[in-house]
C-alpha cells in the first residue's frame, strides 16, 4: 500500500505543475540552427560538380548542367536539379560535400503532401524555399 500511496502522491503533485507539451501547430516549432530540413538550392552558386548526387546514399538527387551561356567563361551552370523527397532521408551529406554551398539545409520540416507527385521538388521549388536557412550558411 505504501508504494501505491507514493505513486498517487506523485501524480497528484503533478496535477498542478506547468504543462510541458508544445502547442504545435498553433505555435511553430523552433528548431535549432543545425536542424536538417528541406534543402534550399542556389542555382547561381552551383558549379555542377555532381558531388551531391554522388554522395547521396539514396540516389534521390538528379541534376543536369549546361554550358555556360557566356562563351568567355569556362565551366557549366545548372540546368535542372530535382530532389525526390519520397526517398530523401535528409542525411545532410549533400550539403556537407557541396564545395560552394549551393545546396544548404533549411529548418523547414513540414514535408507532408497530399500527393506523391508533390514530393518531387524541382529547381524552382528548391530555389524559392528560402525561409529558415541555416544561419551559418547564409551568405
Amino acid at each position, binding site marked *: 500500500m*505504501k*508504494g501505491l500511496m507514493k*505513486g498517487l502522491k506523485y501524480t497528484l503533485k*503533478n496535477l498542478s505543475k506547468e504543462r510541458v507539451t508544445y502547442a504545435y501547430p498553433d505555435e511553430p516549432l523552433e528548431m*535549432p540552427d*543545425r536542424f536538417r530540413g528541406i534543402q534550399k538550392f542556389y542555382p547561381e552558386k552551383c558549379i555542377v560538380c555532381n558531388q551531391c548526387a554522388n554522395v547521396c*546514399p539514396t540516389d534521390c538527387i538528379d541534376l543536369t548542367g549546361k554550358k555556360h551561356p557566356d562563351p568567355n567563361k569556362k565551366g557549366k551552370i545548372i540546368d535542372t536539379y530535382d530532389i525526390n523527397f519520397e526517398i530523401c532521408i535528409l*542525411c*545532410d*551529406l549533400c550539403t556537407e560535400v557541396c564545395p560552394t554551398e549551393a545546396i544548404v539545409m533549411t529548418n523547414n520540416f513540414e514535408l507532408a503532401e497530399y500527393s506523391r507527385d508533390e514530393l518531387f521538388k524541382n529547381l524552382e521549388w528548391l530555389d524559392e524555399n528560402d525561409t529558415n536557412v541555416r544561419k551559418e550558411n547564409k551568405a
Partner: protein
Amino acid sequence: MIRTEEMLLNVGPQHPSTHGVFRIVLKIDGEIITDATPVIGYLHRGTEKLAEDLQYTQIIPYTDRMDYLSAMTNNYVICHAVETMMDMEIPDRAEYLRVLVMELGRVASHLVWFGTYLLDIGALSPFLYAFREREMIINLLNEISGARLTFNYMRVGGVKWDAPDGWIEKVREFVPHMRKELAGYHDLVSGNEIFLNRVHDVGTYSKEDALAYSLSGANLRCTGVDWDLRKQEPYSIYDRFNFNVPVTEKGDAWSRYQCRMAEIEESLKIVEQAVEQFPSEGAIMAKVPRIIKPPAGETYVRIESPRGEIGCYIASKGKKEPYRLKFRRPSFYNLQILSKLLKGENIANLITILGGIDIVLGEVDG
C-alpha cells in the same frame, strides 16, 4: 461434455505491445501459452545488402535506422570498425563528444523503454513523464546533430559538428534535473505493489541460459554476469570514467528493470564526468583521407549499446565500399530466448516478458 481445445492466436504484426511490426503466433489453452513462434522480418530493409554499394560515410545514415532509439551507438559502431581497420587516432575532443552523445542516447533509450514498459503493464502516466525527460535529451541531441532521431552525427575519424555554444552547459544542467526526475520515477513506479507483483518471478532464466542464448546488455546482467563492454573491453575513452556496472542476480523481469534503471544513473555519472573533463579545445576530426578505404582484410568490433552488444563486421577488399558489412544486432539475438520463456505463461506475462527484453524492431529485422 465440455470440450476444450487449443486456440491459435496471432499477436501482431499490428498490436500495441509489440513495439513495431513483430508477430508472434501463440498456441493458447485458455490464457496459458503452450507454444510460441516469433515471426520477424516485417521491417527488413536489407541494410547489409545496400551497404555493399555504398561508401562508408554513406552507410552511417543507414545505421541510424536500425536501432532508432539509440542511433548514436549505431553510428559509433561502424565508425569504430572502420577506424580499427585503419588504425586511426581519434582526437580527444571528438571522443568526448562521442561519449557524451552516446550516453545521453543511452539514457533516452532507457527512458523510452521505461515508459513503454509501464504502458505495456497498464500504467499510462510513466510513459509521459519519461518522455518529458527524453524530449530534453532529444532536444540536446537535435542541437548538436541537427536531427531528433536519425542523427547521422559521427564520421569515420571523429564527429560531424562541434558542440554548439552553451551546449556543454546545458548538458551539465540536465544531469541533476534528470537525477531528480529519476527519483520521481522510483516514487511512482518502483515501489508500486501492483507493478512489483507483475514483474517479480516473471520470465526468469538462468545465467547458463542467458549465455547459451547469446543474450547481452541488461538481459545478461540481470542474471549476475558482470559484463559490460564499456568496462571489460574499453573502447573509445570509457576507461577514463569512473562508473559501475549494475548487476542483479535473479534473472526475472524485475531484475531487468532494476538493471536498466540503475544504468540510467551510471550513464548520468559518465555524462557528468565527461562534461567535467571535456577538453576546452581541439580538433573534432582526425586526419582522414576523403575517400575512406580501409585496408583489405576483415574486422569485428563490438560495443555496448543500450540493448546489449552491438557488433560490426567488415570485410574489406581495400575498396571504398565494404565487401561485406554485417551488424550484430543485439535485439535480434536477445529475442531468441522469447519462445523458450513463454511456454506455460499467460498472455499478460507475454507482454511483460516481451517488453522486458527491450527490443527495437528496426534492429531485429536489420
